[in-house]
């Protein structure tokens, strides 16, 4: 599931790079970097899990689980932080105070509240995309909003997984569904004119 999601994330990154090359709009560069990080984090996490599975869950290899998770987590933290920054940047009123507030979020170390921080960032991004949809009323904007809302829900499930193991597969399915919504948007955008 993570490999499929990472391919979609990298496809979004590629499309954002194409858009940036054409329009030279910095928000699109942040979007590109953000999805490169998300895709890379998912690949690393997927590979780490694969190594553990291939090693048939031997005790020495379990370390890869936490390495993969940590890298994926930090990549997502910076990625969603960048997206928040991109939306703030677009409003053209990013003062030093706002940037200073964003930076500690980007470089925070892993702790008990990290998953909550991710949810907070995703809720912010989902809200921005919801506002965009309410203005544009267009299917692509709805798909992007749906994707970020679903990713936020996936992280809520990851948080609940700590208490109830049942939520782990649900979180992965929700995450995949979020990326599939982004794929649907990409396919619609690239339809022949």
């Amino acid at each position, binding site marked *: 599931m993570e490999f499929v999601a990472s391919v979609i994330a990298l496809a979004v990154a590629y*499309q*954002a790079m*194409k*858009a940036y*090359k*054409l*329009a*030279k*709009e910095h*928000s*699109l560069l942040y*979007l590109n970097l953000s999805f490169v990080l998300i895709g890379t984090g998912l690949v690393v996490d997927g590979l780490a899990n694969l190594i553990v599975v291939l090693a048939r869950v031997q005790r020495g290899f379990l370390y890869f689980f936490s390495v993969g998770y940590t890298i994926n987590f930090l990549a997502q933290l910076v990625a969603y932080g960048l997206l928040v920054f*991109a*939306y703030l940047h*677009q409003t053209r009123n990013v003062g030093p105070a706002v940037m200073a507030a964003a930076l500690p979020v980007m470089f925070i170390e892993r702790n008990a509240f990290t998953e909550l921080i991710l949810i907070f960032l995703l809720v912010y991004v989902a809200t*921005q*995309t919801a*506002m*965009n949809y309410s203005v*544009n009323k*267009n299917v*692509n*904007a709805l*798909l*992007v909003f749906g994707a970020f809302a679903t990713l936020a829900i996936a992280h809520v499930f990851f948080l609940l997984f700590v208490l109830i193991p049942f939520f782990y597969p649900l979180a992965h399915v929700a995450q995949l569904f979020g990326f599939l919504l982004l794929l649907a*948007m*990409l396919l*619609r*955008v*690239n339809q022949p*004119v």
Partner: protein
Amino acid sequence: MIPSGQSQPLKATAKYRSQFRIYVDIMLVIQRENNEAKPTRILYGANLSHDRLIKYLDELKTLGVIQETGTDDKVYSLTQKGIEFMNNFRKVESFASAFGFRI
């Protein structure tokens, strides 16, 4: 990127962005006029002064995305390169707008 001319590399600056948007607006007006637009139409459609219109039309001709036709009255149309650029632009605009980013 708009296909660059021989000696006009386009730079990623604030000036470039506004210039890029003006290029697109001019080409959109031409496309809207069934690919045959008179200067007056473009002037009003792209909201430009006469001097700036002449400057940008010359630049777009140099870039090879529009061409001047007509003998008595000047008429501008998109070249094949211009049509391809606009097709790409629509995709990119649609993508950026889905995320709420303006181009």
